[in-house]
């Protein structure tokens, strides 16, 4: 009996099924040639093709052959296993076969979609099919193990996406930890005045949700906190959260704000982060009056008591509930959750990077986020557009696409800027009756009510100039231009270069990934895309899951988007987490390592190598053994084992050697 026959308990019968995938594969791979080739491979009893193997009739073909006893192992040559391996394994199981006596040949993503020449594509497809057949004859029938899913959920980031996800999960009866880095939840949405296209007051629609989070008995809200470490795997994450000291006791503080009034600083000296540096704040502060939780926080970098130890501490004196605690320490919380939703949001593009727009050089040049604060009734100018020189502008230029659609900075479109630029144009005109000029490349208004909003602006006497702004500067050509900021742009609709003198320039800055996105993603073992956004599992069909099971994405951290899309995505992430929790179990891929004791020489090379501590050494037997529950299936120990005692299910040495033989020696 050959090795193959002894390993498969008899002669294996392999069925090969080649998919056309419509014309996706058939255009660049000669299907009938591939089928004919497969028929001649050793142990192949059936070779067929079908237009869409993953469809019901396609799967039925496999299942019928299994039921009829024509085959006991299945090879499907179609798309990537990352796409449909679970689909076909399930189909095999439902047809009565073992789902692991199955192998896919990727002849779409790796062949038909990337090869121009059909002859070359067909040869390559044949090689991959031969490799799959060679390999599958040595597959063993395996059983999947299940682990329970912890029902609690961690949501990282308390902006609108994180808030919505947390509320959805909490309403479904799940316990949610909402961890937010800033002293308050609300994110960027809390900074806006009105939201497009309805011009709803942002705070009015956001604060009820923020209160709901605070009040919900299923949500544990930890603000001014960060995730420090994540261990474990889907269904069973152990997370360490670092709670930074506010130096104010959250339980005792009643939010009266007397401490801030009493602070020895009569005027603030530190840049107020919430107001984007437009005003200064004191060392003891709340970010904004509706902050949630409404608890003061002391910034040790600017507080005199922390710097010198010699402050009269008038804040503590003024605090009736005695909530101020200069000795408060950082606290570590360790929690267990089954799923994690990342909703860490975005940052705006740093306009200083484009020097020709003069941000930071000319005081009349603002970013859109700064103007959001000016326009906000609760902002530093009470909702009036008053510039740094104390005056209202008579002419305002709004520059679209700053840091977006730009080869030198970010190539992508940030999706929200056209709409918010239109919104700001409207609000500025309303508050100041200034001449407003929007300089745009294209007007991108795809959402519901967005184009209509643009139409409305066109009626409001706002000037639209189609042309990318070349520069903002202060050199005057005519006397009327003296003392103004001159925006130069080519008006491409009339074919002329124009100079528009204005008092105020608003730079519509694009969205970027958070500056620490790369570190954060490592914490959660996910990837980032080229531009730095968290990477989704599939751009079309799986936009909220990641390649790490149990970790989901919501909101702008996955890519620039507006509030409706962020909320929708947060709901989707919550739904996927709920689906996981509801299943109660998660099946582990059985590609774990195992030890054949007789072959183990006791060298211990393996136990040192395993990053999960999954290999234990039995001193008495002088052999190693693998804890299947901890093994993640990387196979590093298998490669290290000098005697071949360690093997990996689904990736044994023999299986891989046969795959290599198949992939090289036939075609």
């Amino acid at each position, binding site marked *: 009996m050959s090795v193959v026959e002894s390993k498969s308990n008899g002669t294996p019968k392999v069925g090969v099924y080649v998919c056309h995938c419509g014309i996706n594969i058939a255009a660049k791979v000669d299907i009938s040639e591939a089928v004919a080739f497969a028929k001649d491979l050793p142990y192949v009893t059936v070779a067929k093709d079908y237009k869409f193997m993953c469809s019901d009739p396609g799967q039925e073909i496999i299942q019928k052959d299994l039921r009829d006893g024509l085959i006991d192992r299945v090879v499907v040559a179609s798309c990537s296993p990352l796409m449909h391996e679970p689909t076909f394994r399930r189909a095999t199981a439902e047809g009565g076969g073992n789902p692991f006596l199955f192998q896919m040949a990727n002849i779409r993503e790796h062949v038909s979609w990337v090869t121009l020449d059909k002859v070359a594509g067909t040869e390559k497809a044949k090689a991959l099919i031969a490799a799959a057949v060679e390999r599958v004859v040595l597959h063993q029938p395996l059983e999947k193990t299940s682990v329970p899913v912890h029902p609690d959920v961690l949501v990282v980031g308390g902006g609108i996406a994180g808030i919505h996800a947390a509320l959805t999960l909490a309403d479904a009866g799940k316990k949610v930890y909402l961890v937010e880095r800033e002293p308050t939840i609300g994110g960027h949405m809390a900074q806006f005045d009105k939201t497009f296209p309805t011009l709803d007051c942002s705070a009015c629609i956001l604060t009820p949700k923020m209160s709901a989070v605070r009040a919900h008995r299923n949500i544990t809200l930890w603000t001014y906190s960060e995730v420090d470490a994540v261990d474990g795997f889907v269904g069973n994450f152990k997370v360490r959260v670092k709670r930074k000291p506010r130096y104010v006791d959250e339980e005792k503080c009643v939010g009266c704000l007397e401490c801030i009034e009493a602070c020895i600083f009569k005027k603030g000296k530190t840049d107020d982060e919430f107001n984007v540096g437009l005003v200064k704040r004191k060392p003891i502060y709340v970010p904004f009056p509706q902050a949630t939780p409404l608890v003061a926080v002391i910034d040790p970098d600017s507080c005199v008591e922390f710097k010198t130890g010699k402050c009269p501490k008038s804040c503590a004196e003024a605090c009736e509930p005695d909530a101020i605690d200069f000795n408060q320490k950082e606290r570590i919380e360790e929690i267990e959750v089954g799923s994690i939703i990342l909703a860490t949001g975005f940052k705006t593009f740093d306009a200083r990077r484009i020097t020709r727009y003069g941000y930071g050089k000319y005081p009349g040049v603002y970013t859109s986020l700064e103007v959001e604060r000016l326009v906000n009734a609760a902002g530093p100018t009470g909702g009036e557009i008053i510039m740094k020189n104390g005056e209202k502008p008579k002419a305002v230029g709004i520059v679209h696409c700053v840091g977006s659609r730009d080869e030198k900075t970010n190539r992508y479109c940030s999706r929200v800027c056209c709409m918010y630029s239109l919104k700001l144009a409207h609000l500025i005109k309303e508050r100041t009756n200034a001449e407003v000029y929007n300089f745009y490349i294209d007007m991108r208004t795809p959402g519901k009510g967005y184009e209509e909003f643009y139409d409305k602006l066109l009626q409001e006497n706002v000037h639209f100039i189609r042309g990318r702004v070349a*520069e903002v*500067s*202060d*050199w005057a050509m005519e006397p009327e231009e003296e003392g103004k900021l001159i925006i130069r742009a080519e008006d491409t609709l009339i074919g002329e270069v124009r100079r528009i003198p204005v008092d105020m320039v608003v730079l519509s800055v694009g969205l970027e990934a958070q500056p620490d996105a790369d570190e954060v993603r490592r914490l959660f073992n996910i990837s980032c895309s080229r531009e730095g956004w968290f990477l989704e599992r599939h751009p079309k069909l799986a936009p909220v899951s990641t390649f790490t099971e149990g970790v989901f994405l919501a909101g702008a951290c996955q890519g620039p988007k507006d509030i409706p899309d962020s909320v929708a995505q947060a709901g989707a992430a919550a739904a996927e987490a709920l689906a996981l929790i509801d299943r109660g179990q998660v099946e582990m891929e059985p590609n774990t390592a195992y030890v054949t004791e007789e072959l183990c020489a006791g060298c211990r090379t393996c136990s040192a190598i395993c990053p999960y501590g999954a290999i234990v050494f039995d001193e008495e037997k002088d052999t190693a053994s693998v804890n299947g529950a901890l093994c993640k299936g990387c196979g590093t120990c298998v490669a290290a084992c000098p005697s071949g005692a360690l093997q990996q299910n689904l990736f044994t040495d023999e299986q891989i050697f046969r795959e290599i033989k198949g992939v090289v020696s036939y075609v």
Partner: protein
Amino acid sequence: MSYIYYPGCSLKGTGRAYEESLLAVFKALEIHVEELNDWNCCGATSYMSVSELKAFALCARNFALAERQAHETGMTDLVVPCAACYLGLNKALRYLDEYPDIRRKIDEALATADLAYTNHIRIRHPLDVLVNDFDRDRIISRVKRSLAGLKVACYYGCQIVRPYADFDDQENPSSMNTLVRALGAETVDWPLKTRCCGGSLTGTVQDVGQRLSFILLREAIGRGADVIVTACPLCQFNLECYQNEMSRRFDAPVHIPVLYFTQLMGIALGVSDRQLALQRLFVPFKAGSKLQQTAGGQHVGS
């Protein structure tokens, strides 16, 4: 510190004040330069527009010669003061690097003259050398005559910063400003420091070309500059030589001295007026009238 020096045609002709002052300044600072043997015209922008490949060949011949000279002397850097030469040579260098079939053709052409180029020469602008190799503090220590009280508008022009921003920022360069401040003078901050002067259009399409230079002059004067300094022979020519005509054409007087930055440096380093070719200026420059009394009461006049 020693460099091979590529003057280019302009610096031997109408731009000779640039060469004279540059060499005098280098001498004063003990920076050793050796002219490139048998150098040829680089083609600048004109030839590049007519036949790119031939222009690359002209440049490549200079590279090959420079490499040979580098091999003999150990100096690996080629100092190129003229902005057009600087840009043209840089462009050729990059194209030879990036396009193997251009490289092949150029290699063949060079071979017919028994020359070869193997990627071992660096093109440096004197501003780069003075600010980065020589450094500001050393320059300060050599200043014999502080230019305190003088307001200087540094004009970079376009060719040394676009499209290749080798040693300075493309839109907001500061190397010349650093140098000028090291001499004790004050620099005028103005947004037109890399705006085109009109190039050769001042001679051919005069209303366009002269207008561009006029805008620069008017702004510099309007911001209180006493003098404009440049790093390009054509910029210097455009800004200096049409001032009367521009004043008439645009009905606004524009009169201001325009010097090469090396001339200003030379004044501060105590080099004689004659060596700095100050007598070649159309608009005369008398530093003394602008300079302050120094703290010790010592009058630093001309």
